[in-house]
């Protein structure tokens, strides 16, 4: 299969990869760049476990071809905080018990970041609506919503 040389802006770094035209951004992130924080729960855009930020918008990386991601700023869970630091959303998730198995968590955290960047003080209904594309089977979402509200209360600056 012919491969295409791509320059991707991932977590603030330019990354050169050779990707097949049919490869999704998720496949390139995981298989070519080793960024395995994005998870494949379905491959059809139904579960949200592969969510990344594309120009600050939460998107399913399994529904985006890698070639379409060129020239756009991609943020994965690995790029949200540096070293041992936690991003405010990650910290709130930890403190509130908003994660259990952790499979949906990278996507859920990134969808939350996208929400708070466009709406720093969301209502509970707004939060539930914004996260409805990220399935979680462990928590019942209760503590996730509380975690998002906690970040919002702290000012929602993410």
């Amino acid at each position, binding site marked *: 299969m012919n491969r295409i040389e791509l320059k991707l802006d991932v977590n603030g770094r330019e990354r050169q990869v050779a990707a097949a035209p049919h490869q999704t951004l998720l496949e390139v992130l995981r298989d070519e760049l080793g960024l395995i924080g994005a998870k494949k729960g379905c491959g059809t855009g139904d579960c949200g476990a592969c969510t990344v930020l594309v120009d600050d918008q939460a998107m399913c990386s399994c529904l985006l071809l890698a070639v379409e991601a060129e020239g756009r700023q991609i943020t994965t869970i690995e790029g949200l905080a540096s070293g041992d630091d936690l991003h405010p959303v990650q910290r709130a998730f930890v403190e509130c018990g908003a994660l259990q198995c952790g499979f*949906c968590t990278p996507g859920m955290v990134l969808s939350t970041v996208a929400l708070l960047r466009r709406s720093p003080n969301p209502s509970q209904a707004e939060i539930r609506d914004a996260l409805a594309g990220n399935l979680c089977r462990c928590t019942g979402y209760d503590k996730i919503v509380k975690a998002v509200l906690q970040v919002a209360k702290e000012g929602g600056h993410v």
Partner: protein
Amino acid sequence: MSRKQMIGVARPMSDAAPKSRGEARFAADIQLPNLAVAKLLPSPHAHAEILSIDVSAAETMRGVFAVITGNDIPAVEGYDPYDHAHGFLARRFAVFVGQPVAAIAAKDAETAEQALAAIRVEYRVLDAILDSTLAMAPESPVVSRDLAGEAREETITNNAGDAEMANGDLEEGFASADVVLEETYEIPVLHQGYLEPHAVTAWWQRDNAVDVWECVQSPFGARDHIVQTLGIPGHKITLHTTDIGGAFGGKDQGLFSPIAVLLARKAERPVRLALTRAEELTMANPAPGTRIQLKVGAAADGTITAVEGKVCVDVGAFRTYWGPASFSVCHMLVDKYRVPAFRLHAQDVFTNHVGFGSYRAPMAVQAAFAIESMIDELAGRLDMDPIVLRERNLIAEGDVTSGGTSMPKHGGVSVLQSLLDHDAWSASESPRKQDGLCYGRGFALGLWGSGRFPAAAIARLEKGGYVRFTIGQVDLTGSYTSLAQIAAEELGISADRIVFSRADTSRAPFASVSGGSSTIYSMGGAVHEASKELREKIIERAALELGVERSDVRMDGAGVVVAAHPEKRVELAALYEAETSLFYSKYEPFVARGAKGGGVARMSAPCFSGTIAEVAVDPATGKVKVLRLVTAQDVGKAINPMLVEGQIEGAAAQSVGAALWESVEYDEAGTVLNADLLDYRMPTAGDLPEIEAILIEEDGGDGPFGAKGVGEPPMIAPAAAVANAIRDAIGERINHLPLTPERVWLAQVKEGK
């Protein structure tokens, strides 16, 4: 450190921070050199004889490393064609749509898919058996079996196990009843819905031994699965568990590891098989469809006088491994209440559906939907408060359980009372708005027995003054955190100084399944014992070191102090150095063990969990919105209340999913119609209200520090509570889950007439 400084403390999971950074390593994240990708060729037929398979074109394709079919499965002792374990790859017969008939290992997924398309299979299609009632008719065809040895085909039937349990005088019970109700309840096939699909990687490295990495709840069970299916000696298999992206009973001992192991041997390289979501919904092990016919009699004061029931479970093509499944349902129909007379018939039936498995509180959601709907209906007939009616009939300490044992102490009354007094219930009417919607509320009660499984743990002092536990148990959603709190409490050190090594099956002492709400109950006991032993050794040697009697010292943070002179102390870190210095060590290394046996009766620490649900129904569309959920649960002692709440909230969500949306649907040919997460509709954040969890802590739990199993009980009641709330809202009962808009709309149209 005084008593109970670590027990009952809400602490984030010890791995919460790395998980929030995406650092969890799930089964599909394992990296190995020259890793090949496996893909499966599914049977398109529910029931067919495989006449021939031609893999020659696939085998010779570039980038294909190995192809296997049923012919590659070695003959093993104890082969059982009815056993789910042996159905991983079709032999002479394919017995459900999606059953693998061939598997390929290739350099990448695309190559594997192309090679699959090149395999030619010739089938003789047989009549599919897809209805559990018809399957038991004498003239029904039977699910074909590739029998071993001397077995004869005419001995095959679709009876997968049946039993009857009875007590008291049933005729007298119904004769003395003032109200007798009879209903039939249907519960569909439910998928556990874990977000991480099954994945398994196998690698034969040297000396005819194989390493397997797999997301399973039971590491030793997963190893045994390979022993059983392929005949590889257990000591030649090392089963490495991984982080698990949800399991809920669906990842007990793995399903398709034998395929990965066979492919890896043939391909002479590591091979990973990760199921797609469509494969998950088609060929994994969802919970079985169940039909429950129930007849209940009660006196005018609400006292139950008799219960008669018939339970039929379509177990699919293979026996469930805990079966008969219907027998569990029978127990659960009568175990919460005093039932003076009952007769229950249990029937498991083989069909050409996928082999079914367990799902969080296996069969209890199904049983509760039936009996809790029925009790709710009784309350309506007798004009009694549904919670009061349950209180009147609640099984008491010392009563004989359905299993014939004596009911231990339990917190059922407190659960009921706390919800009876709750404003979600005690408000005279649930708030009704003038918005054209129908509002209702409902209650249901669940009971789970909590069993104990065998478990062992090894503890040792670690460099820097930490304590390391080596266990085989997997941590699904925070068990290591609670285990660390148990250890820290006993050792008198901070839980931050406790670390866990999740060891593979060649390095860990035995651990059982992380399931059955048993982890804290079983492994918690082993960790507790190991902690006691290690503490004794530390105290003894610290006293020597400090030159005082052992009764003079106590544990203090990261060290040991002389109680009367706290300035005299020795650090755990120093004790570690003293034990490990090659030429100057003063003591033998600190190692301690803890072990607990299993085999305790089914009702060893009964846990009641009750739920109030409030709903709004749109009469124009039949759409249901859940407005409020309150669950009260008898948890014995919550080691970590935040994590216990998390269990209750998550289970409530799953149970609401079962009530309103979830159902694996099959067409007339046995093909799954909704093999994706858009159409197998699980609850989203937008579907659910806030969930209130009330923890009732009462004596009676005989787990560490009085803990009981907490994971499964909260799953049982919410589905039935939502169903009862809908009944309250629209005035009509629906006996068939899920309560889709269509069913609700049709039911209330009927009521309107």
